């Protein structure tokens, strides 16, 4: 029994933190937020050089073949640094989709490129406002080409290919395709956190190939979401911790009524409550990482638990960080906004808190059915 990261993993964390402190300070995030670039290309190249993109990709596909514990460590640090790069799209979504359902040819073609950073992948599901369901999908796939519009696709303007969910008349109602984006019309759209770019994809008979098999797409989306949820949750927990650190530092150094505001119980108890939520979320992320690293059966419940608690914790930490800063926290100049924006972006990225609460209870029901069967 051992419920901590190993020494090697903690060493990786130290290295990652040191690297990001240097190569991804808040000013880098702000540069993307305020500028026209879609992502920090220099940072992305360096991350690729460090091998982070290839962490869980098998060695025979150009990866490091390490475990999800290492990837969790990296995710937390990227979340902490609010890194403005397409890591979640390319690694947690596109890479995982290929690992889950890619044919040998697809894996051989794409995994080495994803591992090296030569290609960026993403995932496109949403077509309209509201929670996606198979029956509401309009995008159609005829075996070779795909037609439909996908909104709010993360990194859609910079990705080389997208894993796209289309309607299916058979099976679970959905089919997943791989679409190269060279000839696809993409339009960058404004989102709540401009440090992470999003685009609308207009697919008009674009060439597409099946990923997995027809009519099993919805099941694949669910498996993919469970895996990505753990890694998104680690990013969120990293953000939680950074927001708490920022609030605490400010509360120690800002004086009112002749003393640091961190000495007033209103602030002390607020930040203690942030700490409590962060700690519970982090512990649930440990559980999630363990399930992702090995236990298929426990993954749906563990992933939902990590995801719900991390989403709630980041919203709370980021809004109370602004509140602790008072008026200064509401200025563009201060970095509080970066966490608050990212909190909301990450919270709907792969489905909202509500959606994951529902999935959590469904997973518990399922695990009970299995236990009693």
């Amino acid at each position, binding site marked *: 029994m051992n419920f901590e990261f190993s020494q090697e993993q903690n060493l990786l964390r130290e290295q990652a933190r040191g690297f990001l402190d240097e190569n991804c300070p808040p000013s880098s995030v702000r540069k993307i937020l305020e500028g026209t670039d879609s992502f920090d290309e220099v940072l992305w190249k360096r991350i690729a050089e460090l091998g982070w993109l290839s962490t869980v990709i098998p060695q025979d596909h150009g990866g490091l073949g390490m475990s999800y514990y290492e990837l969790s460590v990296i995710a937390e640090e990227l979340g902490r640094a609010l890194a403005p790069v397409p890591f979640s799209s390319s690694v947690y979504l596109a890479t995982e989709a290929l690992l889950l359902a890619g044919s040998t040819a697809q894996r051989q073609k794409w995994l080495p490129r994803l591992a090296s950073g030569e290609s960026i992948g993403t995932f496109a*599901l*949403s077509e*309209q*406002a*509201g*929670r*996606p*369901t198979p*029956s*509401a999908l309009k995008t159609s796939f005829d075996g070779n080409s795909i037609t439909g519009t996908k*909104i*709010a696709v993360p990194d859609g303007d910079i990705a080389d290919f997208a894993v796209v969910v289309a309607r299916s008349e058979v099976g679970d109602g959905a089919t997943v395709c791989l679409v190269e984006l060279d000839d696809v019309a993409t339009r960058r*759209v*404004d*989102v*709540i*956190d401009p440090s992470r770019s*999003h685009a*609308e994809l207009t697919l008009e008979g674009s060439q597409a190939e099946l990923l997995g098999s027809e009519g099993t797409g919805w099941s694949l989306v669910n498996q993919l979401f469970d895996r990505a949820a753990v890694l998104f949750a680690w990013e969120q927990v990293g953000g939680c911790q950074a927001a708490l650190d920022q609030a605490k530092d400010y509360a120690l*150094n*800002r*004086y*009112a*009524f*002749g*003393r*640091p*505001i961190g000495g*007033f119980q*209103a*602030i002390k108890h607020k930040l203690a409550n942030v700490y409590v939520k962060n700690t519970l979320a982090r512990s649930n992320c440990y559980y999630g990482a363990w399930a992702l690293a090995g236990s298929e059966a426990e993954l749906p419940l563990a992933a939902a638990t990590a995801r719900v608690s991390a989403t709630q914790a980041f*919203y709370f930490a980021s*809004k109370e960080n*602004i*509140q602790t800063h*008072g*008026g*200064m*926290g*509401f*200025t*563009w*100049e*201060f970095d*509080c*906004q970066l966490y*608050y*924006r990212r909190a*909301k*972006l990450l*919270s*709907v*990225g792969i*489905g*909202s*808190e*509500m*959606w994951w*609460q529902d999935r959590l209870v469904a997973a518990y029901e399922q695990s009970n059915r299995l236990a009693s069967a």
Partner: protein
Amino acid sequence: MDFNDTSQEAEFRAEVAEWLQQNVPTREELSGLGEIQQSKLWQKRKFDAGWACLRWPKEYGGRGATAIQSVIWNQEESKHPVPTGIFQIGQGMAAPTMMSWASEEQKRFHLPPLASGEHIWCQLFSEPSAGSDLAGIRTRAERDGNDWIINGQKIWTSGAHYSDYGILVVRTDPTVPKHKGLTYFFLDMKSPGVEIKPIKQISGGANFNEVFFTDVRVPDEQRLGAVGQGWQVSLTTLMNERAAIGGGGGGVGFDRVFRLAQKLALDDRPAIENGQVRSALANWYCQESGLKYTGYRSLTALSRGETPGPENSIGKYVGASKSQDMASFAIDLLEMAGILEDRATATGAGIYTGTYMNAPGIRIAGGSDEIMLNILAERVLGLPQDIRVDKGVPFNEVPSGSSN
């Protein structure tokens, strides 16, 4: 208890409604004018017809109306899309302070142009190191003959760039405890040495400014109250601020999120049928309704001649977090589309994200959540004040950390 008008009230309402019907500016009249010109046009028209600042005495440009008449006016005016916001600080905060503390001559000189919209005023109170602890301001005023010379910096000044006058609290004696060394002035915003810089907010807007003072001269005649009495004068202003912003947080309201939940699908059914959505909506309705009727009760008290008390702090305190949470929830209901701010892409895009980004400011402006709770605890419930380590300590000996 009766929501309906008395016959006199109904008569007054009809008169108001008819005048508004005939005098609200048309689109043609407003076209080509900026927001300030539009506001001034409308204010002047009201003033000329005797409908400006209804409760003020006639000699200062008002109508000498009752509280309830003023409420009826506001209810009827709010049915028309007319711009009124830029006069709120001058008419709602500076004017009541002038009425209590200025000379008769000053009142007759300054209040009518406030009522007519000719002059816009702003409020110069907060400083970078004095927010919740407002009495901890550092901007200095030093006597020089019949003038005072002001040096320092103010922050969070709405409308400083288009204001004619400002109300100002400064420190005239740093060697006495903080509340005792303050003095209150009003000044011409065009005075030499006044420099105004907009502050960009996290929501992207820039509704506030920093105002820098470099050797700005203000004549002693523009002092309100005695030297050292600035805190008491400020309290007049602040009490009126609370009444002015008591209405709530603005932004996304219940009905909008309700309609969104009717329209959006959740697992192929209308989202409004989901129990979690219903429960959240019910709670927000209870808050909105509770604030509305708390406001009505305050109006009734007002119409009976009572002064609205610190219980008005409830509105902003409850309303701000409600807006924030409703916006966050609406974004969640929209799922991936919720983050879009691109009106070309999604219907209503930007409305919820806009409120999400604005709400944190409402939780802080005009007294943070924490200050509101302190006010309620101390002034309504009568609980003890916080321990004050700076009590009785000369201001220049109070610890201030790195925040100065």
